[in-house]
């Protein structure tokens, strides 16, 4: 996989647009998944994921070929998602009623089930429950938790993506786990 990616990146660096399409195909689901878990909203997740690939393309000259491409790409995506969260209003709650609607909350707007495989192992309710719990985590714990448990990356890789020391990543994962433990306990 790494050798293939390296070959494609070299073509992209030479200015081959089409080769970049292969990169997008390879990583689109992972990048979209990170964005979706960070933001909890399909439209925003798509915007951020697309933007991440466009930035990767325009900055490809800055990417060192001997580094791991996915680390670099996930860093771009995570940073864009965090920027997006910063710009959001802090009083944005999913269970708040939408103005001008009767009893309609943002929960009902989350049509996350469409992308699920036919075989629904997890019920929609649980699926929304997970997303809601992830969104309840402060963004700095959230990114670490997503990379660790959703993307199943190593602590070292997470530290490279977030550009933080491994010890800090560990602390954030511990705190994220603790926050979730407390919430699940009360729920």
């Amino acid at each position: 996989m790494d050798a293939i990616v390296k070959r494609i990146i070299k073509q992209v660096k030479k200015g081959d647009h089409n080769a970049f399409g292969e990169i997008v195909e390879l990583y689109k689901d992972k990048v979209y998944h990170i964005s979706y878990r960070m933001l909890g909203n399909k439209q925003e997740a798509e915007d951020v994921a697309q933007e991440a690939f466009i930035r990767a393309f325009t900055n490809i000259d800055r990417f060192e070929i001997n580094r791991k491409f996915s680390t670099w790409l996930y860093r771009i995506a995570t940073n864009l998602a965090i920027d997006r969260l910063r710009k959001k209003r802090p009083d944005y709650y999913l269970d708040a009623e939408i103005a001008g609607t009767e009893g309609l909350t943002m929960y009902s707007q989350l049509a996350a089930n469409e992308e699920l495989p036919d075989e629904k192992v997890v019920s929609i309710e649980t699926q929304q429950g997970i997303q809601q719990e992830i969104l309840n985590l402060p963004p700095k714990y959230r990114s670490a938790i997503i990379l660790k448990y959703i993307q199943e990356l190593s602590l070292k890789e997470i530290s490279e993506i977030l550009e933080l020391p491994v010890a800090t990543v560990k602390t954030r994962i511990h705190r994220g786990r603790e926050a979730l433990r407390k919430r699940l306990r009360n729920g």
Partner: protein
Amino acid sequence: MKCEKEAVLLMHKVLDQEATATEKLQLNYHLKSCADCRDYFEELREAESFLQSAPEVRAPNGFTSKVMAQLPAEKKTVRFKR
């Protein structure tokens, strides 16, 4: 729960797969005698499996073509080199 702080640190170490064999034994030994810590550890593990049960999410249809349509035009210098 005097033991909690130290035991909890150990729990996280075990969950991060960074505990030594001795530390694992130490935790197991402690959990056998301390029901509070046993519950605590169980809750942490539940939090983990809860996260791990999050289903895969896929990029929407047409994602790649949308990205490709937004890429900046090729640089002149590149075209010249060909």
